């Protein structure tokens, strides 16, 4: 079953690569068969110009309709709607919209919510300019056996692997991976290893906290890697209140887990203290490693497999001044594995590290994007970067510093040049969080000659 689906996944990737202008031969010979650039390797890819960025946006009480929404921004310079919002789909209520991910066929976008635990499934293929909400999974907690806070929705062949952040027993950090079929049927729950039950994993260091956050797969190594953040009580709490709460600050994840991809069994628990968040794996088939950053201790960590097939985690660089808690958040690896963009929330900066020697990253560029910044998404060719600002509804800055924007930049290898910005509060949309790319070319379609914007329809 899995093997068959994987073949179909490759087929889809080939098809998309061809649609995007690459020949099949070029794709197969390329050492960097990259997505844009943090997507599942099973997924169809946009290798040319993306047409849209889907921004999973948190509703703000008193701003517009106050509801979470999927906002579609037109980002193709050739489009008449370039730089404009072309669609906004409200989903009802505030659910703590956070991350989203496509199914492996890239026809549907699963947008998860950390508070109400709903997963909103959007059809993005019928009309890439206007995603349509087709299904809402509302019983995730009950079906999963008590997992709270669905976070990453990650494409595996025919499946969506969903990381949890919390549980319905104590709203702490112990949690699980939850697996669904692409059509929204619950499959199984894979609990994170704890001291009491390592589920067959080896505890390699001092910690086995059972926490979760992100997941990535390295299919050629038959490996999945997860990271760890914190539970509902903390991620929903006012950030300043939490920093002043000594008990709460003890409840962060300090582990990453290496899993057997096919059996879904945890193999090793690695110590990575300080809340390791996003996981970004190298694309080169000879690069057996992934990066993460620790939010609290402000370090880049390398999680790598040595020549004896043993996995290790090593802190390889500081990000800014760790004593000032810059809070690294989203990261984005270049498709050739040479560079890593790292955003730091507190100072609103983006930093570029040369990671061509993954054991010795060197910062080569730094720029402030705004008073706060969270997510960064890079195009496959690395020439376009998109930034959004919201971290969590109750963690964002207060007062004037609470800027909420979507910004598009061009990167020429030396400088970031802003192309356009959308003020999400002024547009009464809310807090923009995670971005995913859409393109007509994914579905062998051509862009229409003109595109209606949301403003046109008002």
């Amino acid at each position, binding site marked *: 079953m899995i093997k068959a689906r994987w073949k179909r996944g490759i087929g889809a990737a080939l098809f998309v690569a061809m649609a995007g202008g690459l020949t099949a031969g070029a794709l197969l010979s390329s050492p960097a068969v990259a997505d844009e650039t943090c997507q599942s390797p099973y997924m169809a890819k946009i290798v040319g110009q993306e047409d849209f960025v889907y921004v999973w946006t948190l509703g703000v009480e008193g701003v517009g309709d106050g509801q979470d929404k999927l906002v579609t921004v037109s980002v193709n310079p050739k489009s008449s709607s370039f730089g404009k919002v072309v669609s906004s789909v409200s989903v009802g209520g505030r659910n703590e919209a956070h991350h989203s991910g496509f199914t492996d066929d890239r026809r549907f976008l699963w947008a998860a919510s950390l508070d109400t635990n709903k997963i909103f499934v959007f059809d993005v293929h019928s009309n890439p300019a206007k995603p349509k909400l087709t299904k809402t999974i509302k019983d995730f907690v009950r079906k999963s056996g008590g997992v709270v806070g669905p976070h990453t929705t990650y494409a595996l062949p025919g499946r969506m692997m969903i990381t949890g952040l919390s549980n319905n027993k104590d709203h702490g950090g112990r949690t699980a991976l939850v697996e669904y079929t692409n059509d929204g049927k619950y499959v199984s729950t894979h609990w994170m290893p704890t001291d009491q039950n390592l589920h067959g994993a080896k505890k390699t260091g001092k910690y086995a906290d059972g926490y979760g956050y992100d997941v990535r797969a390295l299919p050629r190594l038959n490996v999945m890697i997860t990271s760890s953040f914190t539970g509902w009580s903390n991620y929903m709490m006012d950030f300043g209140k939490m920093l002043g709460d000594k008990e709460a600050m003890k409840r962060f994840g300090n582990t990453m887990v290496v899993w057997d991809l096919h059996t879904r069994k945890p193999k090793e628990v690695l110590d990575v203290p300080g809340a390791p968040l996003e996981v970004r794996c190298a694309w080169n088939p000879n690069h057996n490693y992934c990066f993460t950053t620790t939010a609290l201790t402000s370090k880049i960590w390398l999680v790598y497999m040595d020549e004896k097939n043993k996995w290790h985690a090593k802190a390889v660089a500081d990000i800014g001044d760790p004593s000032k*808690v810059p809070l690294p958040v989203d990261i984005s690896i270049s498709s050739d594995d040479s560079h890593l963009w790292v955003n730091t929330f507190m100072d609103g900066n983006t930093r570029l590290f040369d990671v061509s020697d993954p054991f010795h990253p060197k910062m080569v560029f730094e720029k402030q994007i705004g008073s706060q910044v969270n997510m960064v998404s890079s195009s496959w060719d690395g020439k376009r970067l998109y930034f959004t600002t919201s971290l969590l509804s109750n963690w964002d800055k207060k007062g004037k510093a609470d800027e909420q924007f979507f910004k598009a930049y061009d990167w020429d290898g030396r400088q970031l040049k802003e192309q356009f910005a959308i003020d999400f509060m002024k547009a009464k949309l809310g807090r923009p969080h995670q971005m995913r790319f859409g393109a007509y070319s994914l579905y062998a379609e051509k862009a229409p000659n003109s595109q209606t914007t949301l403003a046109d329809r008002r």
Partner: protein
Amino acid sequence: MCAHTIMAIRSKKWLCATLLFALALADPVIVLAAPGDYRGGYDTPDYRTQSEDLLMRKGSAADLLGAVRNPPLGLPQVPIPANNPISATKIKLGRKLFFDRRLSLNNTMSCAMCHIPEQGFTNNEINTAVGIEGRTVRRNTPTSYNVAYLKRLFWDGRETTLEHQIWAPLLSHQEMGNPSPGAVIEKIRALPDYRGLFQAAFEGRGVSMETLGMALASYERTLVSADSPFDRWYYGKQDKAISVSAKRGFELFTGAAGCSACHKIGTASALFTDNAMHNTGVGYARTMQTMPATRKVTLAPGISVDVPTTIINSVGDARLADLGLSEVTQKPTDRWKYRTPSLRNVALTAPYMHDGSMASLGEVVEFYNQGGFFNESIDSRIHPLALTKSQRADLVAFLMTLTGSNVATLVDDAFAAPVGDWREGDPEWAHSAVRNGLGRHEEDTQ
């Protein structure tokens, strides 16, 4: 899994975690239901996880009706209101409600999400509670143990009966966020798994403001906990039930330290509270003190940094003032008065004080040793004690003897309770349930 099984597992595989609790007792060992994510020693580089697996968090129902009718050694008879006689069906219904997350507007918060059984029916992991959508609650979650005996409820004492108390968190914008009593009632009425339960418990009466409060109060009254080492020593006359240090602590508690002036001990039973309101200075300090320029923040095991308060403030809402009883009475003389908490099971209910500002009993004893925090209306019984280090340790040793012998049973019972989460067929929003209800009503009257 019965309580004995839990204890057996813990005594083998979980020796480290349970020993920390047992050692904290410093007396005949009672293996307690410990928090599943124990973080003792997190401030040090030597910290090791002792995490428990949620799949193994299972229990079996206890005879709660028997417990409430025959409270354990050291407690008086449980007061039962004449208009809400206790029954097994009410208790079972109340327990189901207590653990039902659908009782909040967005199906995320139940009573038990703050009153967590294995965390002393409070929350050991945060100083002050976090409500629906992460909203800030100003105060520490009080334990549900022995609430049956309280004559004032909430830290500010604003409520008097358990039957009424539940409606405050249910309707609070900060806690469970429900828009109205009717919305809650109609929602429960529409939940298929509640069909017939209220009628069975209340002689045919369905869910209403009154029966909902009665059912929850019935379960909460069963959380009586005593027969502690102290009880067996003091009331049971078992001389070796507590240590010599704890006995010295008792002498201080009832003597020079003056603790029992408010934390009362009777001749036949002890509630360890006077059910009265006092100003110890904790509330005054929280509201009136200015923040230091930097605050120590733990980033990872053994790693802390001093973070400028300006940075913390940049991502936090301003701390809300808290006047305690004065918010209820409007009297300036009642500023910063809070309810005296019972000390039973106090070893399990950290962090301490109404704002959770003290992490350990050692800190609490030290606070009182220094005479509280002075302010113009501080309680006259609070004054510097000049206790030696050894005496302070004795006091803590005594406090550690107040853990009831039935804690594991009550927690085990709570683990057996179903956790209510949304399922197919449930009303999603309280509003839609109300609309449906009104729709039916309109049809009926036409």
